[in-house]
């Protein structure tokens, strides 16, 4: 039967992917192949540009993202304000760039949080199977049965708004997805002969996990993480858009987009700037993720 996909949304891992990723990352080929993949390259360039600009916003603008000038609100782009000003007379460009910084932080930490927890859960469930598997996976089913953004909203409602809680909310929502993927990858790796070979020389369970399972099982979740980055950015901004994210005046893209929505006609440059900022970065991660998948899964390669 063809690869089945469970409610998590990602296809069950092809055992080959991890191994192939592993094979390639052992040499310099990985980078080489990646750089030869146009899509991955595009993604990589976008991300690198964003990282650089987010780290050094002063390359493009000297304005403080939070300094208001109520006398100069909603100005269109000009030499002084390259992307114009917002409703408080703040520099839009500066806010966009600082927003990138925040997006990286939120998405990064949320994916790491969700990814690592999910990876650990999937690893245990997949490797040990039996009751451990049943209990953990039922728990994941429960989390999965609650639609992602509503789960995040409920978590934020419980914990309160704020960057930390947004990270936790998105992290939690990522756990079951990683857990499922990791589990199916581990199930694939577990039955490989080299695991049996290691058992045949007398390795213990922890030794096998560390030496054989983990190195061969992280590939698929890793590629998946790239794609989850983009989802995390979108979810974070979606939450802020609903007014559940970070507090003002923190330059968060979704929040800024929500605020600028009211000025769509007076100052369309705001909605455009924030929307394009989110879209481009998300596109970068998606392109990189797709590219990675192509590179390591030649069956769908372009």
């Amino acid at each position: 039967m063809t690869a089945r996909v469970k409610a998590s949304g990602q296809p069950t891992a092809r055992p080959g992917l991890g191994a192939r990723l592993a094979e390639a990352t052992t040499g310099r080929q990985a980078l080489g192949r990646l750089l030869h993949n146009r899509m991955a390259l595009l993604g990589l360039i976008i991300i690198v540009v964003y990282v650089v600009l987010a780290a050094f916003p002063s390359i493009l603008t000297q304005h403080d993202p939070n300094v208001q000038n109520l006398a100069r609100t909603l100005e269109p782009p000009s030499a002084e304000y390259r992307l114009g000003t917002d409703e408080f007379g703040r520099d839009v460009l500066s806010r966009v760039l600082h927003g990138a910084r925040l997006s990286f932080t939120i998405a990064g930490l949320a994916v790491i949080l969700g990814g690592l927890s999910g990876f650990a859960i999937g690893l245990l469930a997949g490797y040990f199977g039996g009751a451990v598997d049943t209990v953990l996976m039922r728990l994941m089913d429960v989390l999965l049965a609650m639609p992602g953004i509503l789960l995040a909203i409920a978590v934020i409602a419980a914990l309160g708004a704020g960057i930390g809680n947004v990270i936790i909310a998105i992290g939690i929502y990522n756990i079951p997805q990683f857990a499922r993927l990791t589990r199916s990858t581990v199930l694939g790796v577990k039955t490989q002969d080299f695991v049996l070979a290691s058992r045949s020389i007398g390795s213990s369970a922890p030794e096998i996990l560390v030496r054989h399972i983990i190195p061969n099982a992280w590939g698929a979740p890793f590629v998946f993480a790239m794609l989850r980055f983009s989802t995390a950015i979108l979810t974070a901004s979606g939450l802020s858009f609903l007014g559940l994210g970070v507090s003002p005046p923190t330059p968060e893209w979704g929040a800024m987009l929500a605020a600028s929505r009211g000025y769509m006609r007076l100052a369309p440059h705001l909605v455009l700037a924030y929307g394009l900022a989110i879209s481009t970065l998300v596109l970068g991660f998606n392109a990189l993720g797709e590219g990675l998948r192509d590179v390591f899964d030649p069956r769908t390669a372009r």
Partner: protein
Amino acid sequence: MKSRTLPVFSLLVIVALLLAACGGTPTTTSPTQPAAQPTEPESESQPTEPPAQPTEALAASEVPAGTEAPAATEASATGGNLIYVLPTDIASLDPHALIETVSGMVDLQMFETLLALLPDGSVGPRLATEWSVSDDNLRWTLKLREGVVFHDGEAFDANAAKANFDRILNPDNALPAVRVLAGVTEVNVIDDFTLEIVTQAPFGPLPFHLAHYSLAMVSPRALQEMTPEELAQNPVGTGPFRFVSYTPNESIVLERFDDYWGEKAKVDMVTFRPIPETAGRALLIETGEAHIAAKIAPQDVDTLRGVDGLHVDVNAFPRVIFVHMNESHAPLDDVRVRQALSWAVDREAIANDLLRGLAVPATGPVGSGVFGYSKTENYGYDPDRARELLAEAGVEGLTLKMLVPAGRYQGGEEAAQAVQAQLANVGVTVDLEVLEFSTLLQAIRKPAAESEWDLLVFGFIPATNDADWQVYSQFHCDSQAPVSNNFSYYCSEEMDALLEQGRFTMDQDERLKVYKQVIQLALDDAIQLYLFENTDIYAVRNNVQGLVYMPIDYQFLNTVSLSGGD
């Protein structure tokens, strides 16, 4: 391996898939086509009507509410479906269960109160024609209007009124309306059309309370026969419109009640459409999909003003947006610090630049249309003075935590950000936290010792349009949170004495003088940091005639008519 027929094949496949996947989607009719709208009325009505006889009383005006409609509309009289866009969905159709004005606006088209607010902010007769108070200031006597029928055919009389009050006063019912009757101990029937209301202590503002939408009269038969849940869905009142249908978050449809005792409605139907998104409301009115849109956002005003066929009405809305300063926390207990913060904020810039001139800088705690308002001098914008005062108080490197409710007040969050930036200017760091209103209430409804915030952006409009409702609950020592709304934990004997005097005085002119002192004292003590008064912005199609704005955010739509062709 290529073929040109491929896309055709794929289309076929997809169509087949779809046919299997979806069994047809439900459709609904467009609100712009009223003919398709009405459904069967859910309440039955058998009108009978004794004649009405208005009589004079204490109040200044004898004109029944909403009779000031322009003459022009009289001719084009009847017909049409008036589409009115609300900023939120209504909470309930049971007036006694109400707590907010949007529901009040809708309910007041179907229900009536004993007394009613007049466009000038004073109180006049409605279902009661006259009222007086006994010499000990504890017993109020009301003469009720005769010849009024409910939509279900029941006649309105003192027994019906008493049934309503009894329902509200019964603590088992836990109805929100009870708070408007705080201090009322009993309601008695004197005769068929005379009602007596007894209060525990002298209570000057009572007429304003009786005009509050949550004390509207519901058919006694409905009260008897229906459960609270049914009442919430089947409104039976005496108003000019009666209920047709309610689709939550979509529409509330009313139709003209032909046996109304007063000025009969000119339009056949009214359809309320709740649209929470400001941009959505603006678009609906712009595209002609609606006739009246309430709560237009300031940023949409310029655009709408440029649209043909409609006009924008900016009305004063006496809700004052201000900042509570938690006086239980040092150094906010120092009046100089509070004054300093007051000087540091540029109200003009906030109202004119940030809120695009669609807010009015506040002059004090009480809004300009409220009974009890008087013009006072608020703090100006003087950051130097602020810095001096802070230095004088020995305050340096102050960091304050400011709370603001999410989406609760027009311009509230924006103002909070501006205040944050402006306070930063005088060396005060503000950590801003936007909270859902429910979370915020939980956070602030605490005794002083447990409070964990310093500044709190808040807005207030007295539901009765009487200053007592506001200032007593905000400034009296006994009103300190969590008991009531004194979230600043302010307390002074001088203030308490004034507040009590305002409440016990029956003479409304006397009361005005008292409240003037209250307001001045509030400013001197810088109890709160007064920012601006909201405006109420309506966009109205030009074919809407006879729309009269009441002081608190509602209109009586029986006077409104639609002229042909939009």
